[in-house]
């Protein structure tokens, strides 16, 4: 999830939201929205077990909620159109396009037969296309579904992801390149969320031509890191692609958990301090770059830790204890975080925040 300096201005958001949206808010939420310097969206589970998406203020207060038919995972937001999409958690088959300002009715997108969503996607910079990571589960290959992000979100094509267990994906700022994290783990809806090939994983990072789907470059990992699932991505302002990983190998190993790559260059794996790797529990659940501040945020629900890195050097700037850490997003200053036990920045709400946050204002 990235904040690329193109989010909607708060006043414009309020103006666009109009009377209907504002009238639908309880007074506390309206106050929260008026005070907000940033607005985020994230999936959540309510105490009654219901799932939804909430818009959230900079302080972490819930502004608005939209009900979902099942659990969501990652989200995409288009500053160009103001539309957002929440993707079902794998092996879910729905995604919901919605307008955080409630100017338009939500649209349910269904994956085609033989495909399910992997939980992530991204808009093209002009907001006209939506790309979604998908599983061709009979073919055991990752795909990128392409949807016309107009009114009905019709599926208009697909590209091969050149890997298995495709998870997060993003788009370069100029819209010319798709960046794909293939986690390397085989799953099949017949077996739920069971990981079917832990002893023979094939993680990879792939760059595709956004127009043709042609492979630009693909990076696999050395055999010693075959169980390092490359899963989440964000892009820094110099075009450097940051990735975060989850280790499926021996628990007493100290694998690299993040790294970067650029077009035309090999991947670089970050050798984090040993104690940081331990505190991250060999598992990074989410990554986000704050371009303005030049920092990268990582969170780990396993270790209960949020780590902030320098975007230029990769050095650790800060570590925070955050029990059941979930999402990260670029904040007005630094990195916004959430947790499964309801913490979102400085506010605790009676919901379980899901794994990812997207910044929309």
């Amino acid at each position, binding site marked *: 999830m990235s904040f690329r300096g193109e989010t909607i201005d708060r006043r414009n958001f309020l103006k666009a939201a109009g009377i209907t949206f504002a009238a639908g808010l309880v007074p506390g939420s309206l106050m929260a929205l008026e005070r907000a310097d940033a607005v985020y969206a994230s999936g959540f589970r309510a105490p009654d077990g219901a799932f939804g998406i909430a818009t959230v203020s900079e302080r972490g207060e819930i502004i608005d909620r939209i009900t979902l038919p099942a659990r969501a995972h990652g989200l995409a937001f288009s500053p160009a159109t103001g539309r957002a999409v929440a993707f079902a958690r794998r092996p879910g088959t729905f995604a919901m396009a919605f307008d955080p300002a409630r100017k338009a009715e939500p649209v349910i997108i269904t994956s085609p037969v033989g495909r399910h969503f992997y939980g992530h996607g991204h808009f093209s910079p002009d907001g006209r296309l939506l790309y979604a990571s998908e599983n061709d589960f009979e073919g055991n290959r990752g795909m990128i579904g392409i949807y016309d992000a107009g009114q009905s979100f019709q599926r208009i094509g697909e590209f091969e992801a050149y890997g298995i267990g495709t998870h997060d994906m993003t788009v370069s700022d100029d819209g010319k390149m798709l960046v794909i994290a293939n986690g390397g783990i085989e799953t099949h809806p017949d077996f739920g969320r069971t990981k079917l090939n832990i002893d023979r994983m094939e993680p990879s990072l792939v760059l595709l031509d956004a127009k043709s789907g042609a492979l630009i470059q693909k990076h696999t990992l050395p055999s010693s890191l075959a169980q390092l699932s490359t899963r989440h991505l964000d892009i820094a302002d110099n075009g450097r692609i940051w990735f975060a990983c989850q280790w499926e190998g021996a*628990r*007493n190993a100290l694998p690299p958990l993040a790294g970067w790559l650029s077009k035309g260059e090999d991947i670089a794996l970050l050798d984090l*301090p040993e104690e940081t790797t331990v505190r991250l529990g060999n598992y990074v659940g989410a990554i986000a770059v704050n371009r303005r501040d030049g920092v990268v945020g990582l969170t780990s629900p396993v*270790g209960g830790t949020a780590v902030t890195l320098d975007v230029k050097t990769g050095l650790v700037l800060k570590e925070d204890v955050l*029990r059941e850490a979930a999402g990260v997003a670029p904040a007005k200053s630094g990195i916004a975080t959430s947790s*499964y036990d309801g913490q979102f920045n400085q506010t605790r709400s009676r919901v379980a925040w899901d794994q990812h946050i997207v910044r929309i204002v």
Partner: protein
Amino acid sequence: MRRILAAGLLSLLPLSAFAQEADNAAPAVALPEAEVTKVMTAAVDGFIRPGYDALGVSAEAMAASMKTLCDAPSKANLAASRTEFGKLAASWAHIEIVRVGPVIEQNRFERILFYPDRKSTGLKQVQAILSKSDETATDAKTLGTKSVATQGLGALEYLLFGTGSETLAADKNSFRCRYGAAVAGNVGNVAKELSDIWDAPDGIQKAWEQPGPDNPAFRTGGEAITALLGILVHGAEAVRDQRIETFYKGADKVTFPKQALFWRSENTWPMVAANLSGLSSLLEKSGMVALLDEKDRPVVSAIHVQLKAMTDLTAKIDPDLEKAVVNPADRKKLDALLADGKDVIAKLNDGYGGAIGLSSGFSFADGD
């Protein structure tokens, strides 16, 4: 701890002004290590190892029964082998709930049971072996190198109950019979591999029983118990989603009775019952209840009661699934099984999971 080095690894200089607020990580589940070791030891020694040992014993009995049938074909010996198949299948179903560790490595799970198989890959491949009388399928060792769909319980069920199985009662040392004996031997070989791996004192047994910083499986007791809970949650989900919903998704939904596991031999419900008893047995024998505060413990007894009720209900549904799915009374029982299954999953997920510190439950907290 073992640092993994690889080309492209950027070494960073130590940071002197390290703004660290955390002395330690904050894992969601923090439990007394001694108590955890007790529970994990009980789970391994009281459920997992005996489960694989019992599977090996059942496979031996199956192999012996097949040998008798091959040497002296008769209706009685065929009936005995069919009964033995039911016992072997149930023995597997009891330990099948463990879908972690060595069983999911090197295709061991699929070598014992290849299912679901929507495209009937296994059936087609077994029929091809039968039509060619491929002698390499009659030796457990060479069979073990063939497609996983041809060497496990699915293949054996077809050989004993499928079209042409009646010839087993008449033809001495037939190809079909010797192939069946090899399948039994193959299942026995995989069971022995699993027992050997779990019995090795310095292997996975130790890793599961003694979590710690240098442990290759679990760094903390919390991780170990979370994984143990995961076996129960995923096991309960598999019963509901893989074994029942495969053919019956609820009232007014299309049914697929011939997609059910072992519909041909009417072992669908005995398998489900053995899965459920496996869940109950692991929960009981591990003593997981001891890790909960007194006030939270009723959730464990409630799970036992519900699993028992579900098991009892399976015995009351017509074993002929084509009849069961069109019988209103049986459909009600199927609906009840689905509802109870969902409830058991919730009790494990949110009830037990919440009580050990996973504030939003087990499944919610498994990242992605």
